[in-house]
């Protein structure tokens, strides 16, 4: 069988073509997105932050039981709600939450649900959200 010899390269041609391809990238648009000023594309069904409707929650603790990594703990909150006699509400640790959405799925009254919001950075060194904070908008929590 005849062995195909590789083409003999002409010196400097490769170097020049490399230089031209590098220089041609100069006219392309940068891919960097200047994040806080320019928002990247967010898919419509993207979900991150867990929210809570305090009036709908019945304190059934199903969300606590289904949470795979123990991010949800039930907490006692004294509040007038005839449907929630034990006064138990979920308390979420976003530091360990993996956004599996099991809590939203299992909630019998759809009191717990996930929202589009994802900028949850704050100056407090804790990711724990109390039931009251969960019920609030993210902007109000930051205040």
């Amino acid at each position, binding site marked *: 069988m005849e062995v195909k010899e590789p083409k003999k390269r002409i010196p400097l041609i490769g170097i020049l073509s*490399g*230089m031209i391809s*590098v220089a041609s*990238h*100069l006219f392309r*648009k*940068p*891919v960097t997105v*200047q994040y806080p000023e320019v928002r990247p594309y967010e898919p419509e069904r993207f979900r991150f932050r867990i929210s809570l409707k305090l009036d709908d929650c019945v304190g059934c603790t199903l969300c606590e039981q289904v949470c795979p990594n123990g991010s949800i703990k039930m907490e006692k909150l004294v509040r007038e709600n005839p449907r929630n006699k034990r006064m138990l509400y979920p308390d979420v640790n976003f530091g360990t939450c993996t956004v599996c959405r099991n809590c939203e799925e299992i909630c019998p009254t759809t009191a717990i649900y996930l929202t589009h919001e994802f900028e949850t950075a704050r100056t407090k060194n804790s990711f724990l959200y109390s039931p009251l904070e969960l019920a609030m908008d993210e902007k109000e929590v930051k205040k």
Partner: protein
Amino acid sequence: MNILHWIYGVLSFLGHDIGYALAYIIESIILLIFVSVMLIFMIYLFRKYMARVQQRIGPNRVGKFGSLQLIADALKLMGKEIIFPKERDDLPYKVAPYIVFFGLILAFAFLPYGNLSIFGNLTITYSDVSIIFIFAILAIMPIGEVLAGVGSHNKYALMGALRSVAKDVSFEVPMMLSVLAIVMMASARTSTSLSLESIVTTEILPYGILEPIGLFVFFIAMIARASYAPFDMGESDSELVSGYSTEYTGMRFALFYIGLFGSIFLGSLLIALLYIGGFNGPFSSQVGFIWLIVKGLILVLISFTIWLSMPRIRIDRLVNAGWKYLLPISFINLVLAGVLTLGLGW
């Protein structure tokens, strides 16, 4: 008309000696400012160019379009704590960056810059042997690199210094031979053929057209001299942490960094002067300076493109390229220059 005489005209009431001394000092400061501003602009240009080639944006937060980023970086480097290695060789370690920096600045004093309307010429002093002078100054800078490598008491620094010396020795010879070809050709037209000014003013065609081989050799040797990729042996940042500048911090490190960009700028100006006509061009008696800077900056951009498109080559192949390829090519160029000058009378 020279800026020097212009300043002396203002200071002439002080008498001849003091007036000229002050005029020289003031013009040196003007040159230092010019070179520093050009270098800051070049570093900014490099960062923007590199960013755009890599489809990034580059510095854009400090000042409009990040134009003050370099000043912020310089302030940061000045404010940094200076850490000295414990077993350093004190004097060489401290002196090395200044040798690199002032060697570079000194070379700029002898370049013929051409005229700029009423301001005149920026050149500080003229010499009939300015080519020899400039290349002698260029040979000072590697000494600073060697001192840095030896004085740091660090194996990486020492290796970097050894490599950069090997590189400089093997590329200095072809570079000088290709300059010799130009001096040969210029000697047919002028009696002071070692002066850069008279080489540029007496040329008929740019020497890059007459001897493209010489331009090629000189350009490659200049890349090696300025030590950026593919010949960044002295630094080799993936193998030898940062080469001879490994142990340097703060302003001393900045001087090495400025030295790198300054060598690129100086090399580009030298190529522009020797091979592509320097300050010659339309209206060169009024705007020759601008022609020189424009040609230099185009060459700087070409250098940056080479820098960004090539990987580092191995040290043995680098030395081979210097001695086995460039040296014979530059001899051929020398013979061709002789044939062109004596045989054809160009």
